[in-house]
């Protein structure tokens, strides 16, 4: 059944869109990531113009994060104070990202920066996560005792910075600089690359701030929700490329998928979850590496600078 998308100005199969949303929603509930880094490239591949795909996915990520965040909220898995710090700095970062997005788009190098950005961040974070998770799994096999929910409380240089703030729920007492830096960085990258940034935020919170595993996903979901809500409105006002029909179709599929993802997550250990996410992240990074390194099948591409039509 074909569904016409009024902003994208084309028709796509309704069941394909709902299915796509469902699959990504499952992963989103499982790992606490928005799933934008998978959904955006898939939509562009389906023929939806990149600006519409990016802007509509932000709306979908809001819905997926809401249902996920509520699940974690009920389990007490959110550190509100930490989330607030991340959100405020994240919104500032998003403004910078949207501005850079516009500059690169007019210079014709947005595709390159998106590909390089995906490759560098997904590649490095995916590798780090995979190494850490595999090590943890091996250790678990050898010792046979359950892995601690909180990572070994090693104090890194991050914990020696000044202006420390206490985050009770996370059992943390850290400088606010790394918190603001992480929040702002995620906001910037998220709006620039058209992704929620959960897959960067989760490891950053785990490895840099040592946020306990039981808190990290819920807090990350809440931050992604707030930043993506702000970005959706920003896109709607700036470029008018948010397709509400597309976003609603995707979110319907994804909220259902997310519920199953959250349940499935309860049966997997933290290190197994991280290993799985790392493999998915690396696969996406590899896809972007190939697109940059292999000779393109068609060196030419076309872009519309002014909107056509009206009427």
């Amino acid at each position, binding site marked *: 059944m074909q569904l*016409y998308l*009024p902003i994208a100005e084309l028709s796509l199969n309704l069941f394909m869109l709902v299915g796509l949303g469902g699959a990504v929603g499952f992963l989103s509930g499982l790992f606490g990531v928005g799933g934008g880094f998978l959904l955006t490239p898939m939509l562009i591949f389906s023929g939806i113009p990149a600006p519409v795909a990016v802007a509509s996915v932000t709306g979908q990520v809001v*819905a997926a994060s809401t249902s996920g965040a509520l699940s974690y909220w009920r389990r007490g898995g959110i550190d509100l104070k930490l989330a607030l710090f991340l959100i405020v700095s994240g919104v500032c970062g998003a403004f910078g990202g949207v501005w850079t997005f516009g500059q690169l788009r007019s210079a014709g190098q947005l595709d390159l920066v998106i590909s390089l950005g995906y490759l560098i961040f997904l590649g490095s974070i995916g590798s780090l996560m995979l190494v850490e998770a595999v090590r943890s799994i091996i250790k678990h096999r050898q010792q046979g005792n359950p892995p601690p929910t909180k990572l070994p409380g090693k104090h890194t240089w991050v914990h020696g910075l000044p202006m420390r703030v206490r985050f009770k729920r996370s059992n943390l007492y850290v400088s606010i600089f790394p918190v603001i830096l992480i929040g702002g960085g995620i906001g910037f990258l998220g709006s620039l690359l058209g992704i929620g940034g959960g897959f960067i935020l989760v490891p950053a919170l785990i490895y840099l701030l040592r946020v306990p595993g039981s808190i990290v996903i819920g807090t990350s979901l809440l931050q992604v929700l707030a930043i993506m*809500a702000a970005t959706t409105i920003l896109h709607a006002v700036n470029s008018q490329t948010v397709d509400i029909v597309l976003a609603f179709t995707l979110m319907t599929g994804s909220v259902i998928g997310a519920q199953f993802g959250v349940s499935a997550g309860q049966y997997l250990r933290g290190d197994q979850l991280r290993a799985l996410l790392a493999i998915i992240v690396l696969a996406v990074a590899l896809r972007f590496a190939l697109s940059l390194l292999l000779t393109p099948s068609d060196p*030419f591409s076309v872009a519309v600078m002014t909107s056509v039509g009206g009427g």
Partner: protein
Amino acid sequence: MRLLLALLTLAAVTIEASAQRLVMSTSEPVVSISSNFAGDTITIFGTIEPDVGGSAEQVTNNYNIVISIKGPSGTYVARKKTRQYGIWLNGEQEAYEGFPSYFALVSSAPLEKIADPGVLSVAGLAFDSAPHIRPVRRTQNTDPFAQELIRLMKKRGLYSLDEHGVQFLSDTFFSARIALPAHVPNGTYLANTYVFQEGQLIDNAPQRFTVRTVGFERFVANSAKEYSLLYGVVCVILAIFTGWLSGVVFRR
């Protein structure tokens, strides 16, 4: 463009001495896009008649018809990827203004049998004819990049050539069916029908039709443009509500 049309009209009037005239129409003045729009087919039909005061004998046969259908135009950019520092990135680019977003050519016979390429080009009956290729800056790349742009538009199904798309139902009555793909842009379309006889253009007649969204789809598209802030807020509220609702429904 307007000058060219004026010239064409003038030319048509001058040739009116041969006293034949083209009468044509389209099947629907408005192509409506609703939620289940999956492309549409528009029929263009017409007849070649003796001019006022002329007699039926003046209308002979051996006519050839070429119809051009052009969608709303915009500024298009063609970019070429080149290999630098080991990776492929967008290098040279060329911008073209007034480039039609949709362009179909349908004819009753292969174009080279209807008229010389020069004649067709002057009438704008070639994708790369002068009225359609208006570079923002003219460089050595202008022409090759324009060819690539046309090739990409053909690949997307927005540019098409059908050399057997016009059928003559009698010596003087013809009809043509033009397929509009699902991703056809909204806007005003110009269908121009040209009559050729023995390699000469003897008449042409323009006809406009509109492709536009209707009902809910039109409401959404308009809201996004006119009340963009409110639209964005509604999107977010809808998203949060959907997320919340699913949380309630699936609560375990």
